[in-house]
């Protein structure tokens, strides 16, 4: 079976030789090609080349479209990204500096014509041509309730959300939701088949249950309504969300859940059962300091929890550049070994 068929089998509860294994090696691409992060992210071809090289070496099941969170901000007018060879790029110029800027914020009529999207499109085309038929191609899409944090900074967004004018807040959210729906459609059209919907406000760790129900949930529905939930992965930026899994499953119908390493994986698996794909996510920040043996032991622990009953995927979180190569290898070797199915 191809990795893509293994993924589909896990999602639908069909027989497969092993569980799917996802590994996010996005920032590692610069090192792979011997480039600075800035040069690496400047060309779409780089992202594809690096992803394919690492895929050949490690044998995991997925690749990523060339992406960093700031790309979304760039399409919406951000003029400066802070690159750092030690880690992920960072938005350095907020599009919304004052509340007045919300009215001026324009969502392009077609985001795929924007220069910042062209790098992504180039990367996606190479990946689709090379491995689109056999592997999962992942894309990262920020939810409307979180996108303002990239456009104005989390501090100012929290201030607007909690104490600012409601009409202004909703005007911004409408624009962000429009952008989100467009981005989802653009990634689907470009060949992405795993759409990681990043929604930290979709957990009660960011807002309380009342606000989650009355505010987060309706905006998530609006983001996802135009294109549906096929291929959507519910991801809360590594924050736990077990307590809302049932609600999200019922209200949004999403079929894949990326469980925080801080959450109780057994509880999440029990909650989802065979109704959805549970993704167990290793704490890859601890992997910076673990030994390969400690890494293997954690992989085993997680797969022992998730594998029984199927509908389980093993995955990583942010995969910091500081994670040693030996631990990446130990994690993947262990996940293939312990993830074998009868």
């Amino acid at each position: 079976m191809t990795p893509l068929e293994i993924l589909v089998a896990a999602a639908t509860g069909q027989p497969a030789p092993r569980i799917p294994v996802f590994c996010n090696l996005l920032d590692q691409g610069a090192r792979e090609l011997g480039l600075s992060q800035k040069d690496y992210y400047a060309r779409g071809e780089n992202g594809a080349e690096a992803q394919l090289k690492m895929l050949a070496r490690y044998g995991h099941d997925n690749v990523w479209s060339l992406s960093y969170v700031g790309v979304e901000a760039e399409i919406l007018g951000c003029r400066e990204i802070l690159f750092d060879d030690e880690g992920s790029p960072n938005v350095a110029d907020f599009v919304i500096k004052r509340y007045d800027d919300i009215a001026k914020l324009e969502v392009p009529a077609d985001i795929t014509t924007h220069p910042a999207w062209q790098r992504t499109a180039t990367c996606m085309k190479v990946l689709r041509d090379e491995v689109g038929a056999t592997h999962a191609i992942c894309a990262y899409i920020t939810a409307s309730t979180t996108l303002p944090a990239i456009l104005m900074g989390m501090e100012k967004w929290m201030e607007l959300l909690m104490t600012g004018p409601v009409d202004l807040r909703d005007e911004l959210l409408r624009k962000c939701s429009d952008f989100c729906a467009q981005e989802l459609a653009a990634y689907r059209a470009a060949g992405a088949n795993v759409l990681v919907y990043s929604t930290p406000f979709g957990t009660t760790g960011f807002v309380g249950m009342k606000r989650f129900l009355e505010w987060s949930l309706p905006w998530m529905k609006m983001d996802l309504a135009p294109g549906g939930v096929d291929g959507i992965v519910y991801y809360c930026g590594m924050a736990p969300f077990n307590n809302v899994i049932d609600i999200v499953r019922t209200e949004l119908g999403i079929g894949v859940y990326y469980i925080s390493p801080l959450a109780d994986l057994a509880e999440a698996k029990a909650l989802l059962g065979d109704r959805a794909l549970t993704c167990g996510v290793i704490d890859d920040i601890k992997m910076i300091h673990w030994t390969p043996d400690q890494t293997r032991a954690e992989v085993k622990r997680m797969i022992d929890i998730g594998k029984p009953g199927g509908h389980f995927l093993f995955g990583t979180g942010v995969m910091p550049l500081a994670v040693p190569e030996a631990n990446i290898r130990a994690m993947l070797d262990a996940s293939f070994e312990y993830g074998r199915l009868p």
Partner: protein
Amino acid sequence: MLTDIIKAYNEAVFETDKEAAFLIVDKALASGLTPEEVVFEVVIPAVEEMMSLITKDPDANLAQHFMTAQIASEVTEAMLAKFHHPPEVIGRVVIGTAAGDLHSLGKRIVIGCLKSLMVEVADLGVNVPAERFVDEAVGRNAQVIGISAMMVHTATGADGSLKVRRILRERGLEDRIKVVVGGAPYRFDGELYKTAGADAWAADGITAGRVIVDLIRQAKTP
């Protein structure tokens, strides 16, 4: 009466209702409480109560942290203007985000919390070079340097808190100035603060207040 005021104020803070919190403060003042009593009998105990609740309550959330600090800071500021004598400051802190890090929310929550606890805070902003953290701490006679980092590479990188530690060591200031760190990466690895060269860490902006007050007490007076 004081018990009722405290209860009502705590509820307003827990519900993130700033308007209600200020109304309760106004009523407390009208009923005869002094501004000093409002701060020391109502606001500070409320912050301490939130510290305790956040530790125990699985549904405690970022919005509550933000509003707790915001309300406490604004009420304290309003009351300080009415104090008969300036209050005694329990210590001084300089705070900012690590070099390369532009995430300012956590820092703001910590600052709001510390102000209400009568700690003098200098906000150095975002993307702060290590040398500036130390120079400002020395210049302001601060006992604690607070460094916020939301990304792994800014939390553990050579230019962040590790460099602050190195400069403190080279200048013989380690006993006098303590380093506290906070931010998302530390929540995933409780030992990461040691790798980052810090004396302590806090899981969230509100409990950071307690951690920093403890560190102020540990720092040796020059």
